[in-house]
């Protein structure tokens, strides 16, 4: 197959589907519409809370899907007792931050729902890293534990509103403002010191995990630390571990997520291209007993990921006129194509087409120019 015909996004979609299939995930397909009620009840879970809605012929308020995970959970009632491993590749409809209007965005990802143990979480992290590798060799997977972070934040204050402010600062690596928040709320700044230390430690697993474990032990946050260590142990002996970074500035909404959360970056793309984590809390909100972990790859971010820029529209421009023999023209085209070139036949050069070389059948008919 000619790989040049793929856009970067198509190449990545194809590679990701193949990756997930090889690891035993089965494809999950769904309709474009969902009942609006599903999203109105879980608005904060969505990246943007604007949803395209319409009234169906039966009077029900429907929405064009802004998210895939909610639909997968909703439509899998028979999950109790089973573990499902699913992958998807769907269009979703969200407001684009830059222009503020709705955009169709292709999203791919996996969901593991059911008996999610530490290996399943580790496998999800591993597949996240492999997904990033498929996108670009130069990538970083940043991993955090929401439970560890909340353990540390909880020892600064029990006030949930203040905790939320502090968590926002953590997500911005904004340590100076944590001090201001403490002072404003009459909290001894010393109490935030272990949290500041935690947020200041970031780096490759082997470089930082023991320091984090020690800090967690001092703070009595032992179980979440064990979970993090177990999940990350899947990278033991893998060269991918060089690209995995523990960084507590990765945060997600604690009303939906818990445990391990992560974001992926590739060199040359300004924002995160992959995001995921454990979302047992969302499962409980949707009255499911099983646990879940998964991630999404934001394919709309990847349009410019391949740096190779082709300055030509076609390799060969083949000019002909009324006197040119169609069979000779066809032979010429086939010759070019068999040499691996693309060829466009035109009666005149409109000066807009960018081509590498010209074959001109005008008057000379059989001479290369």
């Amino acid at each position, binding site marked *: 197959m000619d790989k040049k015909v793929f856009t970067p996004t198509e190449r990545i979609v194809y590679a990701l589907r193949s990756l997930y299939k090889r690891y035993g995930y089965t494809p999950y397909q769904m309709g474009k519409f969902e009942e609006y009620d599903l999203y109105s009840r879980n608005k904060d879970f969505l990246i943007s809370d604007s949803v395209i809605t319409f009234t169906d012929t039966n009077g029900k308020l429907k929405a064009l899907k802004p998210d895939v995970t909610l639909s997968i959970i909703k439509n899998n009632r028979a999950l109790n007792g089973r573990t499902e491993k699913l992958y998807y590749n769907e269009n979703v409809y969200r407001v684009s931050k830059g222009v503020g209007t709705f955009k169709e965005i292709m999203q791919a990802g996996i969901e593991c729902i059911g008996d999610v143990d530490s290996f399943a979480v580790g496998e999800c992290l591993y597949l996240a890293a492999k997904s990033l590798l498929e996108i670009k060799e*130069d990538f970083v997977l*940043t991993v955090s534990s929401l439970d560890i972070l909340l353990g540390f934040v909880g020892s600064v204050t029990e006030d949930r509103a203040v905790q939320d402010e502090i968590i926002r600062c953590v997500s911005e*690596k*904004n340590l100076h403002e944590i001090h201001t928040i403490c002072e404003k709320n009459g909290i001894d700044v010393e109490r935030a010191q272990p949290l500041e230390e935690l947020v200041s430690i970031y780096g490759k697993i082997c470089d930082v995990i023991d320091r984090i474990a020690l800090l967690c032990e001092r703070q009595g946050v032992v179980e979440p630390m064990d979970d993090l260590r177990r999940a990350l142990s899947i990278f033991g002996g893998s060269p991918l571990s060089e690209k995995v970074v523990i960084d507590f*500035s990765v945060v997600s909404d604690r009303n939906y997520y818990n445990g391990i959360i992560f974001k992926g970056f590739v060199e040359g*793309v*300004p*924002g995160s291209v992959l995001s995921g984590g454990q979302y047992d809390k969302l499962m409980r909100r949707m009255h499911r007993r099983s646990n879940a972990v998964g991630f999404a790859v934001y394919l709309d971010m990847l349009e410019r990921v391949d740096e190779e820029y082709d300055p030509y529209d076609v390799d060969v421009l083949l000019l002909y006129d009324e006197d040119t023999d169609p069979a000779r023209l066809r032979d010429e085209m086939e010759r070019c194509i068999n040499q691996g070139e693309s060829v466009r036949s035109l009666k005149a050069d409109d000066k807009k087409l960018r081509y590498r070389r010209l074959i001109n059948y005008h008057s000379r008919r059989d001479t290369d120019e």
Partner: protein
Amino acid sequence: MSKFLNVALPKGRLGERVYDMFEKAGFDCPSIKENNRKLIFENKEHMVRYFWVKPSDVAIYVERGAADIGVAGKDILLEYEPEVYELLDLGIGRCKMAVASLSDFCDDKRRTLRVATKFSKIAADFYSSKGRDIDIIHLNGSIEIAPILGLSDVIVDIVETGTTLRENHLEVVEEIVPISARLISNKSSFQFKKAQIERIRDSIRAQLEEQK
């Protein structure tokens, strides 16, 4: 993204002070001090590239990855909430975001408060936290004349010395948040150019500590 560290500096006096901090951190670029109209300056030895941009645009350059790091006012970060890391409070360009009104204004809580401002989000968040119903009148400049002409009851704006307010018979009635310049970083760049960014952050932090 190139291997150069791209730095967006705010045009003007504040930007010049910030550049001095970068210079002391070992990322000097002498050509930036030449008297010309160029906007981009490189030092290949330190692999650093500076560019002057409108102060309110710095956060956009950084969020979109055209700049790896930059210096932006807290007012811009609060108003536009860009997806960036806020690494350091540089403690310069200090001022405050405040509510001001005519000296004789008395707030009638039964009526919607008309607020003229360039900072609609900051104003909306502030009054929402107080449960006060407001009508925002978004203006792009000369905010101070809005209450004088009866366009608004109060204004929400940056106050430095308060001279402009006084000269227009206005006074600060409430302070919203202190403002200063912040060192910000693109979240992706931070992962790929961590060593350079950390070196700058740590060196500037040390300079600030020395000044205390």
